[in-house]
Protein backbone atom coordinates (compact mmCIF):
# COMPACT_ATOMS: atom_id res chain seq x y z
CA UNK A 1 0.00 0.00 0.00
CA UNK A 2 2.69 2.38 1.06
CA UNK A 3 4.70 1.69 -2.06
CA UNK A 4 1.76 2.29 -4.33
CA UNK A 5 1.00 5.65 -2.79
CA UNK A 6 4.63 6.73 -2.99
CA UNK A 7 4.84 5.65 -6.59
CA UNK A 8 1.73 7.51 -7.61
CA UNK A 9 2.98 10.62 -5.83
CA UNK A 10 6.22 10.40 -7.77
CA UNK A 11 4.26 10.09 -10.99
CA UNK A 12 2.15 13.01 -9.96
CA UNK A 13 5.21 15.16 -9.32
CA UNK A 14 6.74 14.06 -12.59
CA UNK A 15 3.47 14.99 -14.24
CA UNK A 16 3.52 18.43 -12.73
CA UNK A 17 6.92 19.09 -14.23
CA UNK A 18 5.66 18.35 -17.72
CA UNK A 19 2.44 20.03 -18.74
CA UNK A 20 1.03 17.62 -21.30
CA UNK A 21 0.47 14.70 -18.94
CA UNK A 22 -1.18 16.75 -16.23
CA UNK A 23 -4.87 16.10 -16.84
CA UNK A 24 -4.28 12.35 -16.90
CA UNK A 25 -1.91 12.00 -13.99
CA UNK A 26 -3.56 14.53 -11.71
CA UNK A 27 -7.18 13.52 -11.62
CA UNK A 28 -7.65 15.40 -8.34
CA UNK A 29 -6.15 18.43 -10.03
CA UNK A 30 -3.92 19.41 -7.15
CA UNK A 31 -2.25 21.77 -9.62
CA UNK A 32 -5.42 23.82 -9.58
CA UNK A 33 -4.80 27.06 -7.83
CA UNK A 34 -8.21 26.80 -6.23
CA UNK A 35 -7.33 23.53 -4.53
CA UNK A 36 -9.55 22.82 -1.53
CA UNK A 37 -7.36 22.41 1.52
CA UNK A 38 -8.97 21.07 4.67
CA UNK A 39 -7.52 20.64 8.16
CA UNK A 40 -9.10 18.49 10.88
CA UNK A 41 -8.21 19.43 14.46
CA UNK A 42 -7.44 22.88 15.84
CA UNK A 43 -4.60 22.25 18.27
CA UNK A 44 -0.99 23.35 17.87
CA UNK A 45 -0.65 21.21 14.73
CA UNK A 46 -3.95 21.94 13.01
CA UNK A 47 -4.19 25.66 13.75
CA UNK A 48 -0.61 26.20 12.60
CA UNK A 49 -1.20 24.11 9.47
CA UNK A 50 -4.26 26.14 8.50
CA UNK A 51 -2.39 29.41 9.01
CA UNK A 52 0.63 28.33 6.99
CA UNK A 53 -1.42 26.84 4.14
CA UNK A 54 -3.05 30.26 3.89
CA UNK A 55 0.35 31.94 4.18
CA UNK A 56 1.95 29.90 1.42
CA UNK A 57 -1.13 29.83 -0.83
CA UNK A 58 -3.08 33.01 0.01
CA UNK A 59 -5.70 32.59 -2.72
CA UNK A 60 -6.55 29.03 -1.79
CA UNK A 61 -9.59 27.96 0.23
CA UNK A 62 -8.52 26.67 3.66
CA UNK A 63 -11.09 25.12 6.01
CA UNK A 64 -10.38 24.13 9.61
CA UNK A 65 -12.79 21.65 11.22
CA UNK A 66 -12.62 21.82 15.03
CA UNK A 67 -15.52 21.15 17.42
CA UNK A 68 -14.40 23.46 20.24
CA UNK A 69 -14.70 27.23 20.04
CA UNK A 70 -11.90 27.61 22.57
CA UNK A 71 -8.65 25.69 22.58
CA UNK A 72 -7.07 24.93 25.96
CA UNK A 73 -3.33 24.37 25.68
CA UNK A 74 -1.57 21.46 27.37
CA UNK A 75 1.90 23.04 27.56
CA UNK A 76 2.11 25.14 30.74
CA UNK A 77 -1.05 23.47 32.11
CA UNK A 78 1.18 21.78 34.71
CA UNK A 79 1.73 25.29 36.10
CA UNK A 80 -2.05 25.52 36.57
CA UNK A 81 -1.97 22.25 38.51
CA UNK A 82 0.96 23.58 40.55
CA UNK A 83 -0.91 26.81 41.30
CA UNK A 84 1.27 29.24 39.31
CA UNK A 85 -1.20 29.93 36.48
CA UNK A 86 -4.92 30.27 35.87
CA UNK A 87 -6.61 27.91 33.41
CA UNK A 88 -7.93 31.00 31.58
CA UNK A 89 -4.35 31.79 30.56
CA UNK A 90 -4.31 28.49 28.65
CA UNK A 91 -7.31 29.38 26.45
CA UNK A 92 -7.07 30.51 22.84
CA UNK A 93 -9.75 31.26 20.26
CA UNK A 94 -9.80 30.94 16.49
CA UNK A 95 -10.55 34.63 15.81
CA UNK A 96 -7.01 35.15 14.55
CA UNK A 97 -7.42 32.39 11.98
CA UNK A 98 -10.77 33.76 10.81
CA UNK A 99 -9.19 37.19 10.35
CA UNK A 100 -6.75 35.60 7.91
CA UNK A 101 -9.61 34.26 5.79
CA UNK A 102 -9.56 30.69 7.08
CA UNK A 103 -13.01 29.11 7.19
CA UNK A 104 -13.24 27.78 10.77
CA UNK A 105 -16.07 25.26 11.10
CA UNK A 106 -16.95 24.39 14.71
CA UNK A 107 -18.26 20.90 14.14
CA UNK A 108 -17.05 17.40 14.79
CA UNK A 109 -15.53 15.64 11.80
CA UNK A 110 -17.58 12.44 11.45
CA UNK A 111 -16.09 10.24 8.78
CA UNK A 112 -13.51 10.73 6.08
CA UNK A 113 -14.52 9.22 2.74
CA UNK A 114 -11.11 8.68 1.19
CA UNK A 115 -12.54 7.75 -2.22
CA UNK A 116 -14.91 10.70 -2.51
CA UNK A 117 -12.39 13.01 -0.75
CA UNK A 118 -15.00 14.35 1.66
CA UNK A 119 -15.27 14.85 5.43
CA UNK A 120 -18.74 14.52 6.93
CA UNK A 121 -19.84 16.92 9.67
CA UNK A 122 -21.60 15.36 12.66
CA UNK A 123 -23.73 18.13 14.14
CA UNK A 124 -24.73 20.12 11.07
CA UNK A 125 -24.79 17.30 8.58
CA UNK A 126 -23.37 17.74 5.12
CA UNK A 127 -19.75 17.40 4.22
CA UNK A 128 -16.63 19.29 3.19
CA UNK A 129 -14.73 18.27 0.04
CA UNK A 130 -10.95 18.31 -0.07
CA UNK A 131 -8.14 17.92 -2.55
CA UNK A 132 -5.60 17.71 0.27
CA UNK A 133 -6.49 16.93 3.88
CA UNK A 134 -4.24 17.52 6.87
CA UNK A 135 -5.30 15.64 10.00
CA UNK A 136 -4.02 16.75 13.38
CA UNK A 137 -6.23 14.66 15.64
CA UNK A 138 -4.09 14.69 18.77
CA UNK A 139 -4.56 11.84 21.21
CA UNK A 140 -7.45 9.98 22.75
CA UNK A 141 -7.44 7.88 25.90
CA UNK A 142 -7.48 4.08 25.49
CA UNK A 143 -10.37 3.64 27.89
CA UNK A 144 -10.24 0.29 29.62
CA UNK A 145 -6.62 -0.42 28.65
CA UNK A 146 -5.82 0.11 32.31
CA UNK A 147 -8.26 -2.07 34.25
CA UNK A 148 -10.84 0.02 36.07
CA UNK A 149 -10.04 3.26 34.27
CA UNK A 150 -13.01 4.50 32.23
CA UNK A 151 -14.69 7.88 31.67
CA UNK A 152 -16.45 7.68 35.03
CA UNK A 153 -13.22 6.86 36.87
CA UNK A 154 -11.55 9.88 35.22
CA UNK A 155 -14.04 12.15 37.02
CA UNK A 156 -12.69 10.82 40.32
CA UNK A 157 -9.07 10.12 39.38
CA UNK A 158 -8.40 12.76 36.71
CA UNK A 159 -5.89 12.17 33.92
CA UNK A 160 -5.59 15.90 33.15
CA UNK A 161 -3.82 14.83 29.96
CA UNK A 162 -6.15 16.90 27.82
CA UNK A 163 -6.16 20.42 29.18
CA UNK A 164 -9.39 22.00 30.40
CA UNK A 165 -11.91 20.70 32.92
CA UNK A 166 -9.63 17.78 33.81
CA UNK A 167 -6.78 20.18 34.62
CA UNK A 168 -9.02 22.27 36.87
CA UNK A 169 -10.38 19.15 38.58
CA UNK A 170 -6.91 17.92 39.54
CA UNK A 171 -5.97 21.38 40.83
CA UNK A 172 -9.18 21.56 42.91
CA UNK A 173 -8.54 18.12 44.39
CA UNK A 174 -5.01 19.13 45.41
CA UNK A 175 -6.30 22.33 46.99
CA UNK A 176 -9.05 20.45 48.86
CA UNK A 177 -6.72 17.75 50.18
CA UNK A 178 -5.93 17.84 53.90
CA UNK A 179 -2.27 18.23 54.77
CA UNK A 180 -0.73 14.82 55.36
CA UNK A 181 -2.36 13.29 52.30
CA UNK A 182 -0.79 11.01 49.71
CA UNK A 183 -0.95 12.10 46.08
CA UNK A 184 -0.37 9.21 43.67
CA UNK A 185 0.46 9.62 39.97
CA UNK A 186 0.41 6.72 37.52
CA UNK A 187 2.66 7.16 34.45
CA UNK A 188 2.22 4.98 31.33
CA UNK A 189 4.53 3.19 28.94
CA UNK A 190 5.68 5.12 25.87
CA UNK A 191 4.45 6.31 23.44
CA UNK A 192 2.27 9.01 24.97
CA UNK A 193 1.74 12.76 24.58
CA UNK A 194 4.51 14.92 26.06
CA UNK A 195 7.13 12.41 27.28
CA UNK A 196 8.57 14.65 30.05
CA UNK A 197 5.09 15.92 31.03
CA UNK A 198 4.39 13.56 33.95
CA UNK A 199 7.70 14.43 35.56
CA UNK A 200 7.31 18.19 35.12
CA UNK A 201 3.87 17.83 36.70
CA UNK A 202 5.31 15.77 39.54
CA UNK A 203 7.90 18.48 40.19
CA UNK A 204 5.28 21.22 40.40
CA UNK A 205 2.93 19.15 42.57
CA UNK A 206 5.86 18.38 44.89
CA UNK A 207 6.63 22.11 45.03
CA UNK A 208 3.03 22.81 46.02
CA UNK A 209 3.10 20.16 48.74
CA UNK A 210 6.47 21.31 50.09
CA UNK A 211 5.36 24.94 50.31
CA UNK A 212 1.64 24.57 51.19
CA UNK A 213 1.07 21.08 52.63
CA UNK A 214 4.44 19.98 53.98
CA UNK A 215 3.18 16.83 55.73
CA UNK A 216 1.96 15.49 52.38
CA UNK A 217 3.79 13.47 49.74
CA UNK A 218 3.67 12.56 46.04
CA UNK A 219 4.31 9.00 44.92
CA UNK A 220 4.90 8.38 41.18
CA UNK A 221 4.08 4.84 40.10
CA UNK A 222 5.72 4.32 36.72
CA UNK A 223 5.17 1.54 34.16
CA UNK A 224 8.75 2.01 32.93
CA UNK A 225 12.27 2.39 34.28
CA UNK A 226 13.52 5.20 32.08
CA UNK A 227 11.87 8.43 31.02
CA UNK A 228 12.58 11.72 29.29
CA UNK A 229 15.19 13.94 31.02
CA UNK A 230 15.45 11.34 33.81
CA UNK A 231 18.93 12.31 35.14
CA UNK A 232 17.92 15.96 35.33
CA UNK A 233 14.61 15.24 37.05
CA UNK A 234 16.24 12.88 39.55
CA UNK A 235 18.86 15.53 40.30
CA UNK A 236 16.19 18.20 40.80
CA UNK A 237 14.00 15.97 42.99
CA UNK A 238 16.90 14.97 45.24
CA UNK A 239 17.85 18.61 45.66
CA UNK A 240 14.44 20.28 45.85
CA UNK A 241 11.91 17.71 47.06
CA UNK A 242 13.70 14.92 48.99
CA UNK A 243 10.84 14.65 51.51
CA UNK A 244 7.92 15.23 49.18
CA UNK A 245 8.43 13.11 46.05
CA UNK A 246 9.13 9.42 45.55
CA UNK A 247 9.46 7.81 42.10
CA UNK A 248 9.00 4.06 41.75
CA UNK A 249 9.91 2.49 38.38
CA UNK A 250 8.83 -0.81 36.85
CA UNK A 251 11.75 -2.66 38.44
CA UNK A 252 10.40 -1.64 41.87
CA UNK A 253 6.86 -2.77 41.06
CA UNK A 254 5.87 0.75 40.02
CA UNK A 255 3.61 -0.36 37.19
CA UNK A 256 -0.06 0.16 37.99
CA UNK A 257 -2.10 -2.82 36.77
CA UNK A 258 -5.56 -1.69 37.87
CA UNK A 259 -7.37 1.14 39.60
CA UNK A 260 -10.55 1.29 41.65
CA UNK A 261 -12.08 4.75 41.62
CA UNK A 262 -14.68 4.26 44.42
CA UNK A 263 -11.96 3.38 46.92
CA UNK A 264 -9.27 5.62 45.33
CA UNK A 265 -7.00 2.59 45.07
CA UNK A 266 -4.16 2.00 42.61
CA UNK A 267 -2.87 -1.57 42.45
CA UNK A 268 0.54 -2.81 41.36
CA UNK A 269 1.64 -6.45 41.18
CA UNK A 270 2.96 -5.95 44.68
CA UNK A 271 0.44 -3.92 46.67
CA UNK A 272 -2.75 -1.83 46.76
CA UNK A 273 -2.17 1.85 47.48
CA UNK A 274 -4.95 4.18 48.69
CA UNK A 275 -4.56 7.75 47.45
CA UNK A 276 -5.92 11.03 48.76
CA UNK A 277 -5.61 12.42 45.23
CA UNK A 278 -4.91 10.20 42.21
CA UNK A 279 -3.67 11.44 38.84
CA UNK A 280 -3.88 8.55 36.40
CA UNK A 281 -2.09 9.25 33.12
CA UNK A 282 -3.47 6.40 31.02
CA UNK A 283 -2.36 4.68 27.81
CA UNK A 284 -3.20 6.70 24.70
CA UNK A 285 -3.71 6.42 20.94
CA UNK A 286 -4.21 8.74 17.98
CA UNK A 287 -7.43 10.77 18.13
CA UNK A 288 -10.35 8.54 17.14
CA UNK A 289 -11.00 10.26 13.81
CA UNK A 290 -7.67 8.80 12.66
CA UNK A 291 -9.06 5.29 12.99
CA UNK A 292 -12.26 6.23 11.15
CA UNK A 293 -10.24 7.74 8.31
CA UNK A 294 -8.06 4.64 8.04
CA UNK A 295 -4.81 6.51 8.72
CA UNK A 296 -4.04 4.72 12.03
CA UNK A 297 -2.40 1.30 11.96
CA UNK A 298 -2.68 -1.63 14.39
CA UNK A 299 -0.60 0.28 16.97
CA UNK A 300 -3.29 2.95 17.19
CA UNK A 301 -0.91 5.60 15.81
CA UNK A 302 -0.48 7.01 12.30
CA UNK A 303 2.44 6.04 10.04
CA UNK A 304 3.68 8.90 7.85
CA UNK A 305 6.23 9.56 5.15
CA UNK A 306 8.67 12.08 6.68
CA UNK A 307 9.13 13.68 3.26
CA UNK A 308 5.82 15.53 3.59
CA UNK A 309 3.94 13.85 6.47
CA UNK A 310 1.62 12.14 4.02
CA UNK A 311 -0.16 9.10 5.38
CA UNK A 312 1.39 5.86 4.18
CA UNK A 313 -2.09 4.31 4.36
CA UNK A 314 -4.34 6.76 2.46
CA UNK A 315 -3.78 9.07 -0.52
CA UNK A 316 -4.07 12.86 -0.25
CA UNK A 317 -4.18 12.78 3.56
CA UNK A 318 -1.33 14.11 5.67
CA UNK A 319 -1.09 13.51 9.42
CA UNK A 320 0.85 15.70 11.85
CA UNK A 321 1.38 16.08 15.58
CA UNK A 322 0.92 13.72 18.52
CA UNK A 323 -1.06 11.19 16.43
CA UNK A 324 1.88 10.35 14.18
CA UNK A 325 4.54 7.69 14.40
CA UNK A 326 7.43 10.13 14.15
CA UNK A 327 9.85 8.85 16.80
CA UNK A 328 12.51 9.89 17.64
CA UNK A 329 10.70 13.22 17.15
CA UNK A 330 8.56 13.44 20.30
CA UNK A 331 4.84 14.07 20.72
CA UNK A 332 5.19 17.73 21.70
CA UNK A 333 3.53 21.03 20.82
CA UNK A 334 6.83 22.18 19.33
CA UNK A 335 6.92 19.12 17.06
CA UNK A 336 3.27 19.51 16.06
CA UNK A 337 3.78 23.19 15.23
CA UNK A 338 6.90 22.55 13.16
CA UNK A 339 5.48 19.50 11.41
CA UNK A 340 2.47 21.67 10.52
CA UNK A 341 4.61 24.40 8.99
CA UNK A 342 6.74 21.88 7.13
CA UNK A 343 3.77 19.84 5.87
CA UNK A 344 1.95 23.00 4.73
CA UNK A 345 5.07 24.13 2.88
CA UNK A 346 5.49 20.78 1.12
CA UNK A 347 1.81 20.73 0.10
CA UNK A 348 2.14 24.30 -1.19
CA UNK A 349 5.23 23.29 -3.16
CA UNK A 350 3.32 20.37 -4.68
CA UNK A 351 0.43 22.65 -5.57
CA UNK A 352 2.88 25.12 -7.12
CA UNK A 353 4.66 22.34 -9.01
CA UNK A 354 7.94 22.79 -7.13
CA UNK A 355 10.27 20.05 -5.93
CA UNK A 356 9.91 19.12 -2.28
CA UNK A 357 12.52 20.32 0.18
CA UNK A 358 14.56 17.82 2.18
CA UNK A 359 13.29 17.04 5.67
CA UNK A 360 15.26 18.77 8.42
CA UNK A 361 13.23 19.22 11.60
CA UNK A 362 13.99 19.98 15.22
CA UNK A 363 12.36 19.90 18.63
CA UNK A 364 12.84 21.79 21.86
CA UNK A 365 10.90 20.93 25.03
CA UNK A 366 11.32 22.84 28.26
CA UNK A 367 10.11 21.36 31.56
CA UNK A 368 9.74 23.26 34.80
CA UNK A 369 11.36 21.63 37.83
CA UNK A 370 10.13 24.45 40.09
CA UNK A 371 8.14 27.61 39.36
CA UNK A 372 11.29 29.53 38.41
CA UNK A 373 13.63 26.81 37.11
CA UNK A 374 13.46 24.69 33.98
CA UNK A 375 15.41 22.06 32.02
CA UNK A 376 15.28 21.22 28.32
CA UNK A 377 15.71 18.53 25.72
CA UNK A 378 16.38 19.14 22.04
CA UNK A 379 16.81 17.10 18.89
CA UNK A 380 17.42 17.59 15.17
CA UNK A 381 15.92 15.09 12.74
CA UNK A 382 16.27 14.13 9.10
CA UNK A 383 14.58 11.68 6.75
CA UNK A 384 16.63 8.47 6.62
CA UNK A 385 15.11 5.93 4.22
CA UNK A 386 11.55 6.91 4.97
CA UNK A 387 11.98 7.15 8.74
CA UNK A 388 12.77 10.17 10.88
CA UNK A 389 16.20 9.80 12.48
CA UNK A 390 18.12 11.88 14.99
CA UNK A 391 21.16 13.63 13.59
CA UNK A 392 24.24 12.32 15.40
CA UNK A 393 25.99 14.70 17.72
CA UNK A 394 23.09 17.12 17.90
CA UNK A 395 20.44 17.66 20.55
CA UNK A 396 20.40 16.32 24.07
CA UNK A 397 19.69 17.55 27.56
CA UNK A 398 20.58 20.61 29.59
CA UNK A 399 23.83 19.98 31.47
CA UNK A 400 23.67 18.07 34.76
CA UNK A 401 24.71 19.80 38.00
CA UNK A 402 24.47 23.18 36.31
CA UNK A 403 24.37 26.50 38.11
CA UNK A 404 20.95 27.78 39.15
CA UNK A 405 21.46 30.56 36.59
CA UNK A 406 21.26 27.96 33.78
CA UNK A 407 17.96 26.65 35.16
CA UNK A 408 16.45 30.11 35.67
CA UNK A 409 17.55 31.16 32.16
CA UNK A 410 15.74 28.14 30.71
CA UNK A 411 12.61 28.99 32.72
CA UNK A 412 12.64 32.47 31.12
CA UNK A 413 13.15 30.87 27.70
CA UNK A 414 10.26 28.49 28.32
CA UNK A 415 7.99 31.44 29.09
CA UNK A 416 8.94 33.22 25.86
CA UNK A 417 8.57 30.00 23.91
CA UNK A 418 4.98 29.51 25.11
CA UNK A 419 3.96 33.06 24.25
CA UNK A 420 5.65 32.78 20.84
CA UNK A 421 4.26 29.42 19.79
CA UNK A 422 0.70 30.19 20.86
CA UNK A 423 0.93 33.45 18.91
CA UNK A 424 2.22 31.60 15.86
CA UNK A 425 -0.54 28.98 16.09
CA UNK A 426 -3.54 31.09 17.13
CA UNK A 427 -2.57 34.79 16.92
Amino acid at each position, binding site marked *: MSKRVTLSRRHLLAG*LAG*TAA*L*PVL*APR*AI*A*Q*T*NARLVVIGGGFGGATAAK*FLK*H*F*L*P*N*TSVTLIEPNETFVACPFSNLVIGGQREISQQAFTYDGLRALGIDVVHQTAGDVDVDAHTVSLLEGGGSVAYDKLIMSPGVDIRWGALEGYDEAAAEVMPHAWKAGAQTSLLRQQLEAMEDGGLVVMSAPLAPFRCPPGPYERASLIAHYLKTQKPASKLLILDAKDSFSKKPLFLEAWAKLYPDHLEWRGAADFGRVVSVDAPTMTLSTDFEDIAASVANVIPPQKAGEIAERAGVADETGWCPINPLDFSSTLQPDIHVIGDATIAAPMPKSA*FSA*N*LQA*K*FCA*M*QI*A*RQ*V*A*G*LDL*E*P*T*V*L*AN*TCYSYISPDQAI*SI*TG*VYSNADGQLAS*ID*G*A*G*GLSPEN*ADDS*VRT*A*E*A*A*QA*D*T*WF*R*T*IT*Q*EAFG
Partner: protein
Amino acid sequence: MIRKVRGLILAGLLAGAGLAACSPAATPDESVGAQANAGLSPVAGLALTCSGCHSSMGGGIADISDYTSEAIMTALDRYRLEVDGTTVMHRLTRGYSEDQLQAISDYLGAGQDE
Protein backbone atom coordinates in the same frame (compact mmCIF):
# COMPACT_ATOMS: atom_id res chain seq x y z
CA MET B 1 22.37 37.72 -4.01
CA ILE B 2 22.05 33.98 -4.38
CA ARG B 3 18.59 34.22 -2.93
CA LYS B 4 17.55 36.83 -5.46
CA VAL B 5 18.79 34.75 -8.35
CA ARG B 6 16.92 31.76 -6.99
CA GLY B 7 13.83 33.92 -6.63
CA LEU B 8 14.03 34.92 -10.28
CA ILE B 9 14.51 31.32 -11.34
CA LEU B 10 11.50 30.37 -9.26
CA ALA B 11 9.37 33.11 -10.75
CA GLY B 12 10.41 31.99 -14.20
CA LEU B 13 9.52 28.38 -13.47
CA LEU B 14 6.15 29.33 -12.12
CA ALA B 15 5.31 31.58 -15.04
CA GLY B 16 6.57 29.09 -17.59
CA ALA B 17 4.96 25.99 -16.20
CA GLY B 18 1.57 27.00 -17.45
CA LEU B 19 -0.08 25.36 -14.47
CA ALA B 20 -2.90 27.83 -14.27
CA ALA B 21 -3.96 26.96 -17.78
CA CYS B 22 -4.52 23.36 -16.74
CA SER B 23 -7.10 24.36 -14.21
CA PRO B 24 -10.53 24.83 -15.69
CA ALA B 25 -11.59 26.99 -12.76
CA ALA B 26 -8.52 29.22 -12.73
CA THR B 27 -8.93 32.94 -13.17
CA PRO B 28 -6.04 35.36 -13.71
CA ASP B 29 -5.88 36.55 -10.10
CA GLU B 30 -5.62 32.98 -8.95
CA SER B 31 -2.52 32.13 -10.96
CA VAL B 32 0.08 30.09 -9.16
CA GLY B 33 2.63 32.79 -9.88
CA ALA B 34 0.58 35.31 -7.96
CA GLN B 35 0.24 32.91 -5.06
CA ALA B 36 3.83 31.89 -4.58
CA ASN B 37 5.57 34.10 -2.08
CA ALA B 38 8.92 34.31 -0.38
CA GLY B 39 7.90 31.48 1.91
CA LEU B 40 8.39 29.01 -0.91
CA SER B 41 11.98 30.04 -1.60
CA PRO B 42 14.57 27.31 -1.34
CA VAL B 43 15.83 26.80 2.26
CA ALA B 44 12.60 28.19 3.70
CA GLY B 45 12.07 24.72 5.13
CA LEU B 46 15.23 24.89 7.21
CA ALA B 47 14.23 28.26 8.66
CA LEU B 48 10.68 27.22 9.62
CA THR B 49 12.05 25.88 12.89
CA CYS B 50 13.26 29.26 14.14
CA SER B 51 9.90 31.03 14.42
CA GLY B 52 8.64 28.53 17.00
CA CYS B 53 10.75 30.33 19.62
CA HIS B 54 12.02 33.60 18.13
CA SER B 55 9.54 36.46 17.95
CA SER B 56 9.13 40.01 19.20
CA MET B 57 7.65 38.70 22.47
CA GLY B 58 10.73 39.60 24.47
CA GLY B 59 11.86 37.83 27.61
CA GLY B 60 14.27 34.93 27.59
CA ILE B 61 14.70 34.41 23.83
CA ALA B 62 16.29 36.94 21.48
CA ASP B 63 14.18 38.81 18.94
CA ILE B 64 16.24 38.28 15.77
CA SER B 65 13.89 40.08 13.39
CA ASP B 66 16.29 43.00 12.92
CA TYR B 67 19.48 40.91 12.73
CA THR B 68 21.48 40.97 9.51
CA SER B 69 22.54 37.70 7.88
CA GLU B 70 26.05 38.28 9.16
CA ALA B 71 24.87 38.81 12.73
CA ILE B 72 22.77 35.65 12.65
CA MET B 73 25.61 33.58 11.17
CA THR B 74 28.07 34.94 13.75
CA ALA B 75 25.74 33.90 16.56
CA LEU B 76 24.99 30.46 15.06
CA ASP B 77 28.69 29.78 14.50
CA ARG B 78 29.51 30.75 18.06
CA TYR B 79 26.85 28.36 19.39
CA ARG B 80 28.06 25.56 17.12
CA LEU B 81 31.69 25.86 18.18
CA GLU B 82 31.28 26.61 21.91
CA VAL B 83 31.77 23.13 23.39
CA ASP B 84 30.75 23.95 26.97
CA GLY B 85 27.65 25.94 26.07
CA THR B 86 24.50 25.27 28.07
CA THR B 87 21.62 26.55 25.90
CA VAL B 88 19.31 24.74 23.50
CA MET B 89 20.97 26.64 20.64
CA HIS B 90 24.33 25.02 21.38
CA ARG B 91 22.72 21.59 21.08
CA LEU B 92 20.58 22.45 18.04
CA THR B 93 23.28 24.09 15.88
CA ARG B 94 25.36 20.90 16.03
CA GLY B 95 22.66 19.25 13.91
CA TYR B 96 23.30 21.50 10.92
CA SER B 97 26.18 21.86 8.45
CA GLU B 98 27.92 25.21 8.08
CA ASP B 99 26.28 25.57 4.67
CA GLN B 100 22.85 24.97 6.16
CA LEU B 101 23.46 27.53 8.91
CA GLN B 102 24.66 30.03 6.29
CA ALA B 103 21.53 29.39 4.21
CA ILE B 104 19.30 29.93 7.27
CA SER B 105 21.20 33.15 8.10
CA ASP B 106 20.89 34.44 4.54
CA TYR B 107 17.18 33.66 4.49
CA LEU B 108 16.30 35.18 7.86
CA GLY B 109 18.57 38.21 7.49
CA ALA B 110 17.64 39.01 3.89
CA GLY B 111 15.40 41.94 4.78
CA GLN B 112 18.11 43.64 6.85
CA ASP B 113 20.97 43.19 4.40
CA GLU B 114 19.88 45.70 1.80
